[in-house]
């Protein structure tokens, strides 16, 4: 099966438990994290994860769950297929 990867980005004010909440959702959906990086820029928490979504045709359920956490913790969480970044930034 062709490998499908997505980028989860989390941006917002830093607080306790962000990574834990987000990764719990990913684990519940049986999605493996391939890479993770995180920084704090002027109090702003920024995390990028590359996750394996091979075999998950429909990401909308996951998106809804992430949106819920985003609202709860006042974070902006996006999930986008990796190809969009490859297309825009790689030749």
């Amino acid at each position, binding site marked *: 099966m062709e490998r499908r990867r997505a980028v989860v980005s989390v941006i917002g004010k830093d607080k306790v438990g962000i990574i834990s909440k987000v990764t719990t959702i990913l684990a519940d959906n049986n999605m493996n994290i391939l890479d993770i990086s995180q920084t704090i820029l002027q109090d702003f928490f920024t995390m990028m994860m590359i996750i394996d979504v091979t075999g998950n045709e429909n990401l909308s359920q996951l998106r809804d769950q992430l949106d819920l956490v985003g609202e709860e913790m006042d974070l902006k969480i996006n999930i*986008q*297929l990796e190809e969009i970044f490859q297309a825009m930034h790689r030749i």
Partner: protein
Amino acid sequence: MTIAMDEILQTIRMVQMENLDIRTVTMGISLRDCADSDFHKMQQNVFHKITTYAKDLTKVAVETEKEFGVPIINKRISITPIAEILGNATVEQTVELAKTLDLAAKQLGVDFIGGFSALVHKGFSKGDETLLKSLPEALSVTERVCSSVSVATTRTGINMDAVKQLGYVIKEAAERTKDQNGIACAKLVVFCNPVEDNPFMAGAFHGAGEGEAVINVGVSGPGVVLNALKKHPQADLGEVSDIIKKTAFKITRAGELIGRVVAERLGIPFGIMDLSLAPTNAINDSVAEILEEIGLERVGTHGTIAALALMNDAVKKGGAMASSYVGGLSGAFIPVSEDNGMIRGIIDGALSLSKLEAMTCVCSVGLDMIAITGDVTPATLSAMIADEAAIGMINKKTTAVRVIPVPGKQEGEMVEFGGLLGRAPVMGVNPFSSQNMINRGGRIPAPLQALIN
């Protein structure tokens, strides 16, 4: 990580803060096989074909937009110019067909259906005549049907009989929708050198050289270009061009990927990518503001054409590198009512109708979404069309006229069109008559292709 964090952040910023979007995914559908000598049969054929081919268009577009996190603003359909399949249909039947198209668009949840069109740059066929006669009513009784008429090309010259007739068509369409500020005219474009694969409205139609069905994609992003330029206030104009080029490249790549995915999922060939900087009334999503960022106090002042020429060319260069199939109009649109910067330019007295005309020599289309005084005569409208067509014919480029004579409004008043169509200050036209020239009719011959100075 194969992609750097700042690159991911850049993409997210472009979408969420700078209005990067896929402006439209447009499905082109050929209706040639729908022609029938029995009108009702043809009507059924048309409805059935459109609603079958495009039944998943909206669904797939919404799915794809979610997966890639780049919004697709409009889902549209373009069809074979309707005049080509009309045959012996009457004017009343043609209006009925427009309603059928409107119904199909509503049922499918698409925003617009373009191609209620006729190509008459050399002369009129029977179907063309019927279509032109039906236009004022057809455009005022439908919501989502868009029309375009080709009245000139570089190779055929300008059909001044068609130009004359369209002056009356525009005037009547405005009168019929006077309660809505003449909105019917916002759905009619008069072209010189139209392109067959344009995904943008109101001028989209599925040209004669196209296949059975095709997906064309229009991407836009004035806000992204504006923000990129803001970071380099001291750059010289060569560097400005380079910044626009690089930005256009990235925008086009995003559009191409999404266009291809949509096409693949619908099982329809991918046609072209049209990278056009098309403004909206959203804050900072303005072409005029890009020109001002390049260094003009207000759009319309001296230097505007040079800045626009630079920008239009840089957009094309970036787009051409990014996609294997760049087509459509690819460049910059300068619709007045959809661009807050243009509106401000007019209100402040910096931007005039004459300057807008001059700008169309170097941008991708023409006089677009301009509100003019309601008492304008059909002959003056025709003469405006003739001027634009001449610019396009001589410069071998697409030009167009989409003006709205707003019934009962005077110069300086503000009119609202609503939604994506925005609002516009009413502009005055030259008070001197062009009647005698328009009355002459006939055809302006095609220009020489050599001795071109």
